[in-house]
């Protein structure tokens, strides 16, 4: 069965089958930069009409459903992210997935119609139109909403009590999934416009992950294998899980860990010989990670007018004047802050700096954070707004600021991601000190997501 991998962003890279020309061979790499390539990718239309709903209901493939979902839900919407999270890896593997995705899209429409005014990006005219849709399609939309709520209830149940449902499978995968699901829980508690799509995608990924794991503990007649309880509490998820063969679920979980599926399989850049030689820290058994290319950076989100405005403002930011004796913030570096930076006493504080190649302990760089590297690359790249092209990362150093040291602090400004239409939203705390101000406490350590380090 075809893997049906799809790209990790709402417009997706060109390995997607083109909805306009389905016979056209999918291409391997991202090439949205070329207008010639872009013309084959269907972008969302600026407005929707009544027929969109019927087209969603009647869509006979994900390729047909995808542009409709983009149009009616919007590229940054939570529900669109959910669709992508499930379809990334699940398409072509789970029987009946199309109906499931249609249900998610219809639920997204239901939420737009019934949510508070502030939640909807639709203008008042289209809102009247949406109420007409609701009048005509109420039962279908309401049913989709009911099914989605049930699914979410089940999903939260599984994520909160994994051992109840996965038995031995869970025991062997405990570290991997506990990290992912911890992030899932964290993101749900930190909603923002900027990461709605990302949150939805993570939820969808988690749902898919749960379905695949359930498929590995359900036997040929659809019953839970020995040692696994409570499958009966998950009728919606179990129904999907029964549409996957155990072998396929195991193969997919084993061969393609979730993060690889999500990032769309971007390649790596061959490092210059010098950089490659330097990428192995002295007296260490681990290596820095190679720079990635051809992917949407983990943590990147679809661009929005608000993020665009934030980038325009950052680029025009002027450095505040430094009082006598304080470090000067170069004009250029002021533009890397998402708000006017403040001069702060960081004396005695521990600072962290993620690096992609070794630095001399006495000639460390300018950009630091007061927060340790998070457990997952998405959080770091997204909040620190660090592009793949700059930093393959994989290691970090720490330094303790001497008493009385002042530094410029503030949120990191958003940066354009490697793929057109996406942005690394920034917002994480950023500390600027002139190069060489801080002395590393010790040799670099691998970042938590540098899994090849050990």
């Amino acid at each position, binding site marked *: 069965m075809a893997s049906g991998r799809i790209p990790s962003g709402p417009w997706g890279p060109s390995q997607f089958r083109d909805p306009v020309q389905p016979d056209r061979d999918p291409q391997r790499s991202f090439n949205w*930069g*070329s*207008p*010639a390539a*872009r013309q084959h990718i269907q972008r969302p239309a*600026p407005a929707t009409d009544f027929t969109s709903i019927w087209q969603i209901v009647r869509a006979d493939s994900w390729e047909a459903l995808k542009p409709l979902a983009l149009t009616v839900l919007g590229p940054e919407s939570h529900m669109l992210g959910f669709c992508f999270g499930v379809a990334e890896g699940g398409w072509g593997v789970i029987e009946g997935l199309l109906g499931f995705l249609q249900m998610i899209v219809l639920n997204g429409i239901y939420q737009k119609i019934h949510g508070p005014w502030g939640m909807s990006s639709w203008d008042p005219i289209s809102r009247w139109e949406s109420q007409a849709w609701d009048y005509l399609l109420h039962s279908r939309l309401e049913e989709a909403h009911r099914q989605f709520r049930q699914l979410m209830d089940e999903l939260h149940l599984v994520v909160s009590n994994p051992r109840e449902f996965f038995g031995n499978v869970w025991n062997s995968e405990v570290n991997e999934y506990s990290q992912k699901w911890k992030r899932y829980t964290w993101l749900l508690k930190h909603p923002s416009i900027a990461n709605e799509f990302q949150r939805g995608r993570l939820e969808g990924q988690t749902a898919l992950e749960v379905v695949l794991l359930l498929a590995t503990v359900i036997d040929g007649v659809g019953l839970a294998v020995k040692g696994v309880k409570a499958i009966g509490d998950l009728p919606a998820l179990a129904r999907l899980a029964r549409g996957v063969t155990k072998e396929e679920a195991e193969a997919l979980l084993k061969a393609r860990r979730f993060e690889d599926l999500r990032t769309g399989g971007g390649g790596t*850049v061959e490092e*210059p010989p*010098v*950089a490659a*030689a*330097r990428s192995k820290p002295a007296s260490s058994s681990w290596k820095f990670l190679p720079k990635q290319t051809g992917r949407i950076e983990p943590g990147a989100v679809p*661009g*929005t*007018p608000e993020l*665009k405005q934030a*980038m*325009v403002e950052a*680029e*025009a*930011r*002027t450095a505040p004047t430094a009082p006598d004796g304080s470090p000067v913030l*170069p*004009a*250029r*570096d*002021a*533009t*890397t802050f998402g708000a006017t930076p403040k001069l702060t006493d960081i004396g005695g504080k521990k600072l962290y700096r993620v690096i992609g*190649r070794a*630095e*001399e302990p006495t*000639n460390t*760089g*300018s*950009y630091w954070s007061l927060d340790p590297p998070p457990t997952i690359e998405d959080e770091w790249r997204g909040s620190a*707004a660090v*592009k793949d*092209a*700059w930093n393959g990362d994989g290691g970090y150093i720490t330094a303790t600021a001497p008493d009385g040291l002042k530094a410029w602090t503030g949120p990191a400004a958003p*940066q*354009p991601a490697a793929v*057109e239409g996406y942005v690394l939203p920034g917002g994480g705390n950023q500390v600027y000190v002139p*190069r060489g101000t801080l002395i590393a406490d010790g040799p670099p350590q691998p970042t938590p997501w540098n899994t090849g380090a050990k």
Partner: protein
Amino acid sequence: MATPTKAERIESLKKQGLKALASQLEDLAARLMSLLSQADAEARRLPVEQQEGAQAFAQTAIGIVREYQNRLMQSMLERDPKGLEWTAGQFGSLARFFGDEDYRWFSRRDELDNVLDHLLDVAAAIFASINTFDPASLESAREALS
């Protein structure tokens, strides 16, 4: 007379029009590339303990700027405002990349800094001139490029 702020410089540049700004950006990118090539050559002659970091910086910077140059040229050829906006945004992000790198060893670092600062202003003016979320802005940018 007070030195204009960055915001004032960007506003002033915007008056030149998109086509003239894109052309300036091409020139500045070419000058930056030329300086980086010289930096790469100088890096190879540095003492061994400095050489690795210096060469890694120069080679990475050359790779990044070359990619943006190609995209800029393509956007200009195809009169593609979205491509131009994306490229200008990428050039703008060089502020952070260069801000975190050490090239004090480079004999023409002041010239490099001047070219880079000018390039960042022009890129910011282009980026602020095109709103990809506004069809009218895109249409106007397309006309300006033709």
